[in-house]
């Protein structure tokens, strides 16, 4: 059933909030008041409830079924974390209250930092970025600032990015005025030391490497690459989107990383929420730490926690200013810390192991029917297949994705990483039970056999069991309709 837009059922004559008339007052609006209220209809409370509940019913979520979206890490979102984030002591606190009245909030930031530093083996962390890409921005800014401080600001302006990288990597580098050079993809899915070494030189500011990489593999030569880069005067930015595979198993700090963002929503399970809000704290090496932006938390001699908010002074002498108003995503900090405390060190390690085991279980269970670009080698937290096995079937990777919807599953990530033809990237995460994986595997096997026996119609018409069937994305882009407009009155 189509749910109307709220504007189509709303009215300007009712309201879902009861507001009293204020006591008489003389406005001091300097003549800038609007002539009339904004023309937006309202719904009463019951209508509002129903409208959004019905909309929600058109969505798929982790809570409704398996969500094996590779690289996106859709894991369980504990409701304990939601409850903790809503404690008035966290949710109902203003960012600019006197610091004496927010010692608990600062302690959350301090504890979160401690966990992140211990898990990454890094000496410093900047908490404020509001998403992974925002963290990348911070990391590359710190690198740029460090290079400028070394007097090489004019000459070191190249950032190396593997072809398999997330799109945010080159976008971030370009935004900051870096020239982006690609590191080619190799048949084994890994970044090779030789390829990197061939690009290194006095113009190279940094490499942006994802580890485990977007093919689901731990970069085998990562230590050597980091060393080569450092020898050439560059910095190693690690895209930490896949940190969830190695938490408690390997510390990025032991691999030579200079900066790495951590998507709290991926690794530490703050809710994805249909696309945000995220949080992307960045851990930094000794060499980059001085360039972290404000604000940060410092413990005073009296044991009180303080906020350093002003760049250019004291411990923030080399800091480069703010990346956001206030202090970052407090609501996400609380959730992530709650997740960490619940797991403990050993639980986080177990979670990584289970995530890797789950992915390999799926990989091994489909290996006889699907084709994997890098052969039968183990993967980390996500299993990557290509579309060679679909050759001549008339079925595409996209068709498989849409057909999975009909089987009751969210599709895997498709056509990413770009370096693999018709990629299907499956990340079950540690939250899936064996029962659930077995059902998914059975559905995938059934689809694979259907494709191979030529049951094309099952795929091209998919999805059939979804609120809508395939949408016309071309039309949306060609004649963009980006908002509702009140229809003209019928003459």
């Amino acid at each position, binding site marked *: 059933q189509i749910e109307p837009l709220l504007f189509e059922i709303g009215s300007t004559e009712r309201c879902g909030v009861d507001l009293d008339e204020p006591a008489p007052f003389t406005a001091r609006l300097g003549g800038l008041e609007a002539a009339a*209220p904004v023309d937006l209809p309202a719904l009463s409370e019951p209508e*509002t409830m129903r409208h959004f509940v019905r909309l929600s019913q058109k969505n798929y979520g982790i809570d409704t079924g398996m969500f094996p979206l590779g690289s996106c890490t859709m894991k369980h979102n504990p409701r304990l974390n939601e409850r903790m984030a809503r404690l008035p002591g966290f*949710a*109902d606190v203003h960012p600019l209250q006197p610091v004496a009245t927010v010692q608990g909030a600062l302690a959350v930031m301090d504890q979160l930092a401690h966990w992140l530093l211990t898990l990454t083996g890094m000496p410093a962390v900047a908490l404020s970025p509001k998403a992974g890409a*925002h963290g990348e921005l911070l990391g590359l800014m710190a690198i740029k600032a460090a290079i400028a401080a070394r007097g090489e600001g004019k000459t070191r302006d190249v950032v190396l990015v593997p072809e398999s990288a997330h799109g945010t990597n080159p976008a971030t580098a370009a935004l900051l005025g870096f020239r982006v050079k690609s590191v080619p993809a190799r048949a084994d899915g890994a970044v090779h030391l030789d390829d990197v070494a061939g690009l290194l030189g006095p113009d190279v500011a940094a490499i942006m490497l994802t580890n485990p990489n977007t093919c689901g593999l731990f970069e085998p030569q990562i230590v050597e690459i980091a060393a080569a880069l450092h020898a050439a005067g560059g910095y190693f930015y690690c895209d930490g989107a896949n940190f969830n595979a190695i938490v408690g198993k390997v510390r990025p700090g032991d691999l030579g990383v200079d900066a790495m963002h951590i998507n709290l929503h991926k690794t530490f399970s703050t809710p994805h929420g*249909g696309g945000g809000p995220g949080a992307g704290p960045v851990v930094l090496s000794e060499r980059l730490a001085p360039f972290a932006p404000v604000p940060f938390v410092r413990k005073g001699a009296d044991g009180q926690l303080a906020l350093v908010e002003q760049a250019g002074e004291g411990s923030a002498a080399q800091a480069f200013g703010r990346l956001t108003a206030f202090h970052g995503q407090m609501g996400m900090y609380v959730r992530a810390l709650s997740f960490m*405390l619940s797991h*403990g060190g050993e639980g986080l390690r177990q979670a990584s192991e289970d995530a890797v085991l789950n992915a390999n279980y799926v990989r091994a269970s489909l290996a006889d029917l699907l084709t994997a670009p890098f052969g039968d080698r183990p993967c980390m937290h996500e299993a990557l297949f290509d579309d060679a096995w679909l050759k001549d079937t008339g079925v595409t990777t996209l068709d498989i994705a849409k057909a999975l919807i009909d089987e009751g599953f969210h599709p895997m990530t498709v056509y990413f990483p770009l370096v693999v033809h018709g990629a299907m990237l499956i990340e079950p995460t540690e939250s899936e039970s064996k029962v659930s994986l077995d059902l998914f595997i059975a559905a995938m096997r059934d689809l694979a056999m259907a494709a191979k026996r030529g049951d094309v119609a099952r795929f091209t018409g998919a999805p059939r069991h979804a609120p809508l069937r395939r949408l*016309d994305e071309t039309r949306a882009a060609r004649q963009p309709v980006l908002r509702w407009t009140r229809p003209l009155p019928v003459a």
Partner: protein
Amino acid sequence: MRYLPLSGADREIMLERVGVRAVDALFADAPADRLLDEAPDLPRRKGEMAVERELGGLAARNLSAGSVPFFLGAGAYRHHVPATVDHLIQRSEFLTSYTPYQPEIAQGTLQYLFEFQTQVAALTGMEVANASMYDGSTACAEAVLMAQRITRRKRAVLSGGLHPHYADVTRTVCGFAGDSITSLPPDVAASEDIISQIGPDASCVVVQSPDAFGNLRDLAPIADAAHRAGALLVVVVTEAVSFGLLQSPGAQGADIVVAEGQSIGNALNFGGPYVGLFAARSKFVRQMPGRLCGETVDAEGRRGFVLTLSAREQHIRRDKATSNICTNSGLCCLAFTIHMTLLGGHGLHQLARINHANAVALADRLAALPGVTVLNRSFFNEFTVKLAGRDAAEVVERLAARGILGGVPVSRLLPGAGLDDLLLVASTEVNTDEDRAALADALAAVLGEIVSC
């Protein structure tokens, strides 16, 4: 561990299927000497009750706004959010869904984004809005970058009435990106001559209204001047409830409007997560950053929605993208949309009237105190008071000790600017007459305690 569904027996069976003896065989690509032998040195797992005790204990060490008379603003406002809002955003299908890249099973998210865009466009008086940004401050920096792309000019002019954090974020981001920024000095009285700063090299002029000191700015003359110079007017709003009462930025000539949407539907959250509103004239739509949701039809001709114009975005365009941004503030903009749905235009108008009335009442009461001057000629729900030579930061500390969160000292935002005796005071619909009386009484007492600085 309660979140991990695999049992020991499951793991054994699965390892066998995978064909390895132990899970460490799957980590074989990691350098053996860097693989940790045991769990990191961190506390052991805690049950729910223990986590609640630990985090509850930390929460209790914060003075929550709702427990005291509360008057802080400066870009983050305490409003009453209906229970319906928080209930709905916690629905599994919203909370645990992903970016709607599979539109067939994400129409819930997509439709509310379309509704959100419509609401934001209407409120700002603009033609198009995106599906939200991280917050107002980052949206401000993105607006300046966008103006640069549109005008191909590299100097932005920032008003001295712009929230200092917003100015800082913009200077930082745009500075790194190679723009030059002309920041006017702090402009307490809204008396700066910004028009003279708009030269032929200016990409845009960034003006906030209500400004960081609470003043309402007449934007139309600035818009005219900017447009004459081939520059864009970027308008910043940090208090979205003000849209209910004031002429829209669009009506006054803005080209891009960015705003902090926290006030509608979202809690204070100690500063985040918030939701950035971003709207512009439709001719600039292909230069906008962030996600856009558009209407289309499905294979059976039924109306549906998809993310669109993604050729602007990083996952398609990589280093040619309009922005590196890859997320929005989904749940926060859902909260905004639900709260706005309950309010509608008329409800927001009434809410804004109450806010203004409360602020007027507070201003009158404080102005009556000896040693206190209200500096604003105009304001919405926040204004600046001068405390006759007292250090506002110290005043605020002493008020807090008396159980009153009395405002934001300007020096917190602008240290060293010589504005130490200025205090920003906000009053929304949550404040009662008793709150105002408590602040006035306490302020009078505190001012009597401390000597001039």
